[in-house]
């Protein structure tokens, strides 16, 4: 049971960047961003390629973050400069990213067999499981939460939140909507790219298809966290996204332990989200109908 919990904890933390990115686009910017499916795989693929070529893990993850940012920026520019619908802009980028990631990786799957340098130097809380990973991931995610939390508490973050809340009012108060959306979507996808890199590291391989269903996964994590914390401010919102990621992975681990076939996981995730949508617990910009038709 302990190994199950620890595995879920580690995996949840590896996916926390995805949850934070989803939170940033959907809850802060009110932008339904489908780029995450592509930027998650791009981040994973980039990190895997660099690590196999001997690049230090932190640098590889930083590049994964940067590539994620670029992917988000492309979606932002397609939407704000060319006037393409938000959902369609994300689909276009994701479609293109599949080829780019495949080109970057050179093949569809890259194994990462060695434990990254530095992980084994971290303090071991109790022998036998993946505590080094837990410590490393906890530090990374706490750092991310602190960084995003601080960012959103500045005038800069306030401007982004205003854009998601009421763009008309935000513009009337001097906020450049195009710039705000571009920066926000880029930052969110950077987090998703970083998460892709961490997941690839943790699971020991990167696959070009690893991003499929990432938006739904991210959404599931955000919803679970929000249903527990019911956050009224940004700090709690970020915390709820991270805790949601851990709980989501725990639920999946329990489902697998109860005999669910791994191949059915995405179907179960989709059905759970559909139930949440139908119950009216969730309002996703552009995805949920305002009224029943």
């Amino acid at each position, binding site marked *: 049971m302990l190994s199950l919990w620890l595995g879920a904890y580690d995996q949840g933390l590896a996916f926390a960047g995805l949850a934070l990115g989803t939170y940033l686009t959907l809850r802060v910017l009110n932008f339904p961003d489908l780029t995450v499916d592509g930027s998650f795989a791009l981040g994973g693929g980039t990190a895997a390629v660099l690590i196999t070529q001997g690049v230090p893990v932190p640098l590889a993850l930083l590049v994964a973050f940067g590539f994620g940012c670029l992917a988000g920026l492309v979606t932002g520019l397609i939407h704000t400069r060319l006037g393409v619908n938000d959902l369609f802009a994300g689909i276009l980028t994701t479609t293109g990213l599949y080829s780019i990631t495949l080109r970057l990786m050179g093949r569809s799957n890259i194994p990462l067999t060695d434990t990254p340098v530095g992980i084994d130097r971290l303090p071991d809380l109790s022998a036998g499981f993946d505590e080094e990973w837990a410590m490393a991931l906890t530090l990374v995610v706490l750092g991310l939460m602190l960084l995003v939390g601080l960012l959103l508490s500045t*005038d800069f973050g306030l*401007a982004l939140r*205003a854009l*998601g809340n009421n763009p008309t*009012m935000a513009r009337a108060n001097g*906020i450049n909507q195009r710039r705000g959306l571009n920066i926000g979507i880029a930052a969110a996808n950077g987090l998703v790219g970083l998460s892709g890199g961490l997941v690839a590291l943790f699971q020991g391989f990167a696959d070009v298809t690893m991003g499929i269903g990432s938006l739904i996964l991210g959404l599931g994590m955000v919803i679970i966290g929000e249903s527990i914390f019911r956050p009224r401010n940004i700090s709690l919102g970020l915390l709820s996204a991270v805790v949601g990621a851990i709980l989501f992975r725990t639920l999946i681990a329990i489902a697998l332990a109860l005999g669910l076939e791994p191949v059915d996981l995405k179907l179960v995730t989709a059905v759970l989200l559909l139930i949440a949508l139908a119950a009216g617990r969730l309002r996703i910009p552009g995805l949920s109908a305002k009224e029943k038709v």
Partner: protein
Amino acid sequence: MTLTISELSWGHPLPGGGWRQLFDGFNLNCQSGQFVVVIGNNGSGKSTLLNLIAGTLKLKGGSIELGQRRLHRYRDHGRARWIGRVMQNPLEGTCPGLSIAENLRLAERRRRSGLSFSGLLGVRPSHSDRKRYQQLLDALGIPLGHRLDTLVGELSGGQRQTLSLVMATLGNPELLLLDEHTAALDPKAEAMVMDLTERLVRQLGATALMVTHSLSQAMRYGDRLLMLRDGQLVHDWSATERMQLSEEALRQLYGSGIVAAPNADASNGP
């Protein structure tokens, strides 16, 4: 600052086909610090005029200048550095998901976009910001100073519009645009918001354009009263001239306008 509108031209396509040229060579000059009230029937171009000045609609020709500044060369968020706006709908003028203090902070930063690098410095609103906002609200007699952490979405329409008005005057705007900002309020809230409007406009010394459908407001407030009809300035009264008008006479003039068909109403723009 003096507001100068020269040879303004703007029109929009009609839903059933065709084109409606609302403004064609429209001119207006408002002296610095002047409080101008604009009345007119639906579709006369009052709100469209404010939207063209604010930059939410693009003019097809002519120029809009504030002092020496050519406003029409800036996009709407760029013009916000000098323009404070209060919208008709209390839901539009504030961010319901942010607290009162956060909304005030946004308005205060209007002259410097929060999306610049300087926006990354320091957690905002800071303790001193909050203290300043509390003092400001208390000085204006607005009982929201002790509720700075309350989400604006939890306020009543009147409270929201009051806050929106205070926000519009923060950051020393040179021009205030008030678009039927009491239309959605009950009489008590309307009186309170109008009283505050008068005080803030005078205190600020900015040029102000207020659009209204209320003839009693038109008779009571402002230094100048304009009447628009089909994109044309048909009456321009000074405060002294207005005092010689009766509300009944104004109503008759108001009613003599050709009321545009609902589908030709350009007040919301295309």
